[in-house]
């Protein structure tokens, strides 16, 4: 079962990568962009008998390794 884990930096944390991307976009004249935040996407193929089980498994992985709650938040989605 495919599970997607989106990881974002907490909103109160400076994101220098997002800022660097924003600066490049501004230089390229994409003036409509007001801010950029860069995150991570981890796709997992998980053996589970149903979606709830897969979700709970990935939640456990997020809490134990994949996400650092001091600086990041996450969203789990299926497929």
């Amino acid at each position: 079962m495919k599970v997607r884990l989106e990881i974002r930096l907490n909103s109160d944390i400076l994101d220098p990568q997002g800022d660097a991307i924003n600066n490049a976009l501004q230089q390229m004249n994409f003036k409509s962009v007001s801010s950029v935040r860069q995150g991570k996407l981890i796709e997992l193929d998980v053996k589970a008998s149903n979606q709830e089980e897969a979700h709970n498994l990935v939640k456990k992985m997020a809490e134990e390794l994949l996400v650092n709650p001091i600086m990041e938040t996450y969203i789990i989605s299926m497929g």
Partner: protein
Amino acid sequence: MKSGIIIFPGSNCDNELQKALESVGSSVIRVWHKEVNLPKNIDIIFLPGGFSFGDYLRPGAIAAKSPILNSIISFGKAGGYIVGICNGFQVLLESDLLTGALLRNKNQKFICKDEKIIIGACDSIFTKNFTSGELVNFPIAHNDGSYFCTDKSLKSLIDNDQIPFSYKENPNGSKASIAGICSLNKRILGLMPHPERVVFEENGGSDGFKFFNSIIENF
């Protein structure tokens, strides 16, 4: 004193660290990260700098799940001495032996240069041979060294004298210019600068010698 240096795939400051420890008279045992138990009668554990597991996921995050870490965490919780330098500091934070996180440098650059470090008020073996407010020169070399913690944690670090090292000129955006912190019992230390790189005068300074000597003399 018997020091253990833990080696991860991608550790690259372990040899300098060993030379530094031997120069102040410590014996050194090198321990591969896949070991489950620490060598017997070890006095202090060092986690060296480098790029363990290529800094994948988050610097230090994968190393923090290595087999040896369970023994290191037990050692620390039982009051053992642990020092994490640079990547080793990242490992200590990822394994919750210290509080906070290290973010990407504010200027988005890998910074490698000498840095003036201020010794803070902290009653530890790591700083006993220095005076509070003293300036030392330790080089830094990192991409993810911007120390971050909650305001509540920062207050607790300040109130309990857990900030032995601060930058004079904050190079990376660290909260409160923090370069190194220690545990409440002052026995677990994490710092971004590399004292092991300035142990011998011919390498550009000896403030690092004073650091390692402080550990061995006050152990």
